[in-house]
């Protein structure tokens, strides 16, 4: 019992270093990385729109900006489309936003829940925005009227009336976490977790939804949810369309606003694709619940990296923080997913002589090969010296000549040597090279690829002038699935 408690405390203690809490977020990230100018841009939706448009990032189309009471007075139903959204320019925490879906013959505006708002009441609501009812400190404000985004077809079965929004958390212009918020009946068609919307984590590499939680009112913790209420549709496994574009826009939008720590919110329009709707310089922490993973370890990974370009940032976020889907593949197939360049741990002759090398995955090669210098460092100097004494030529002009020597050595000298040096493999490998044929000796080695240990035979050759000191051949790749996009730093 006590052991269990101690183990649990140790796990909690370890996990604390992975999860971002609100105190740390405020002190170490928001205040440290975002400038007053960034706050000014992010807190003003109109300014955000201007900055984004200037940077060529698509946003929702602006229909009108109402700045004065006179403009409210002169506003007529005909000057507005049937569907639109109204937002206070300096609104706090999403308050004061109204979405109108239609207009009836008496010019009443119709909300998502079917309730009607007379045009006069609509004008009063606009006046309230101008009077600062929803703005920070009650300051006078503007009302922004913009197009209503038409829900992407593939999302319709997962949402209740409203449009889901996608949030990308960025740090130092690298996307670190993403989730999508699905409007539900409980949230009255709003993508607001505090009201009961569902949030699904998104795998950064593939843009596919993973774990989901339903938010509770009063800011409580969310509960895991698997199916869309009343259906057998799963929230997990949904492919977010335009995923690469979304990542690119998130990086470019954060660069345009100099938003070093924050979030970029997207809506996906069925015709226009992803549109940035908001930049947030004080993002909440619910993404961690949706992704069932902490954000702090991700921020730590990015902290000291230098980002060269948008492409670099995309590749980094995919390789560093993708993998949820990879884990699923591994669970189904029982095989690990590795990249084209894979670190391999090679166990030396003595326990303290282990070396980790970057190996190139080569599905064209039958067996793996290792640089002779690395083999020496691993403690196989004696074996190498003994083989040198055999006087095997570097190359053979004909295959017959090579085969003859191979047979002769394998039947005589190699048997003697393997008795003396058990790490030495008794056979020689005939390899076709660019300038003829070579005979390579091999060692029985223990290696570790992506956490999997195995005993294998590795041929030894000169690779010191090549980029990679090791090649992983087919024989050692049988237990793995190769993903060329996977980059290991």
């Amino acid at each position, binding site marked *: 019992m006590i052991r269990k408690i101690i183990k649990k405390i140790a796990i909690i203690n370890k996990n604390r270093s992975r999860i971002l809490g609100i105190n740390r977020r405020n002190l170490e990230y928001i205040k440290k990385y975002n400038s007053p100018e960034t706050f000014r841009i992010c807190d003003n939706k109109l300014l955000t729109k201007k900055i984004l448009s200037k940077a060529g990032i698509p946003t929702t189309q602006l229909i009108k900006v109402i700045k004065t009471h006179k403009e409210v007075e002169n506003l007529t139903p005909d000057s507005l489309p049937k569907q639109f959204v109204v937002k206070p320019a300096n609104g706090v925490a999403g308050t004061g936003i109204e979405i109108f879906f239609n207009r009836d013959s008496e010019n009443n505006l119709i909300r998502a829940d079917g309730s009607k708002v007379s045009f006069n009441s609509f004008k009063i609501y606009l006046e309230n925005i101008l*009077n600062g009812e929803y703005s920070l400190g009650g300051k006078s404000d503007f009302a922004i009227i913009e197009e209503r985004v038409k829900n992407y077809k593939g999302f319709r079965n997962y949402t209740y009336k409203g449009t889901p929004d996608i949030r990308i958390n960025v740090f130092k212009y690298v996307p670190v976490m993403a989730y999508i918020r699905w409007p539900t009946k409980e949230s009255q068609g709003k993508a607001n977790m505090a009201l009961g919307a569902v949030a699904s984590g998104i795998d950064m590499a593939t843009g596919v939804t993973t774990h989901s939680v339903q938010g509770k009112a009063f800011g409580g913790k969310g509960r895991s949810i698997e199916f869309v209420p009343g259906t057998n549709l799963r929230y997990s496994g949904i492919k977010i369309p335009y995923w690469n574009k979304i990542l690119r826009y998130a990086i470019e939008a954060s660069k345009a606003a100099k938003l070093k720590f924050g979030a970029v919110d997207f809506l996906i329009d069925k015709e226009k694709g992803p549109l940035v709707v908001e930049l947030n310089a004080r993002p909440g922490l619910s993404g961690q619940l949706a992704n069932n993973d902490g954000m702090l370890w991700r921020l730590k990974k990015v902290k000291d990296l230098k980002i060269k370009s948008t492409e670099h940032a995309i590749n980094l976020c995919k390789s560093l923080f993708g993998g949820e889907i990879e884990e699923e593949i591994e669970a189904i197939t029982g095989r690990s997913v590795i990249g084209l360049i894979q670190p391999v741990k090679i166990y030396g002759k003595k326990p303290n002589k282990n070396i980790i090398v970057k190996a190139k995955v080569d599905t064209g090669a039958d067996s793996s090969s290792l640089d002779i210098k690395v083999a020496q460092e691993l403690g196989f100097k004696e074996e190498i010296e003994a083989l040198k004494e055999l006087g095997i030529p570097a190359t053979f002009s004909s295959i017959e000549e090579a085969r003859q020597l191979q047979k002769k050595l394998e039947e005589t000298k190699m048997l003697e040597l393997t008795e003396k040096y058990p790490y030495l493999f008794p056979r020689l490998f005939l390899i076709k090279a660019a300038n003829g044929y070579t005979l390579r000796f091999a060692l029985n080695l223990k290696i570790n690829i992506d956490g999997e240990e195995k005993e294998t035979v590795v041929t030894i050759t000169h690779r010191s002038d090549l980029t990679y000191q090791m090649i992983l051949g087919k024989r050692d790749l049988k237990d793995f699935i190769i993903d060329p996009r996977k980059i290991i730093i």
Partner: protein
Amino acid sequence: MVYFLSFLPNNLTNIQTENIRGGLQFSDYILLLPIFILISLFFHYIIGWKNLNLGFQLILTFVFLEALQQDNVFNLPNFLFLLLFTVLTFILLGLTAVLFKNLTMHYKPKIGLIISSVTLLSFISIVIINLFIPLTSISLSPFVMIAILISLENYIKILIRKGFMKTINLILSTATVIGINLILAMNQTFRMLLNKYPISILAVLLIFIIGYWKAFRLSEYFRFWELLNKEHPDDQENN
């Protein structure tokens, strides 16, 4: 320092305890302030309770403190009356805010109108209550009640932005913090210790520490419980 903080203000100003009110010393008010701030910050940054703003909490704490203690004795009728008045004001304020929501006028006059209406309604309610239950044993300064009403501007803003249930939640947590402040302030032994030892200086130091507090709030352990208990295969490999 203790002398400076406790005895000096009384002696320099020549303000006697009785001149201020009841049993609280002049120095008590000064020395209690950092304690109240510390308690409020502790609940916010370490426990993770969301409260209404600090100034609002302090005003309400001192207002209640002023009303509660007379001659160093806990005045129950005053306390109950003030509680009734505050609850009544909160309810009326909520209803009036909803009622006046659609009025087309500047924001500040609207707030002014809400506060004035609630003040009048509250006093009318008290007059009506007085018809049934005579309030002869209540001795409160009108300033106390006006201070409550004015400080409620904060409450209206939150009510408009966060909705009724969230506001109630905030009010309950704020009321708890104020309650703890009052229990401490009404305790004579604590006040004696406060005057004798540099507890207020310690409170200032603790406020400084909280200012740099980066660890989890207690509420976050509940919020992230599943994540905190998750075992990561990577960790095992690294080990």
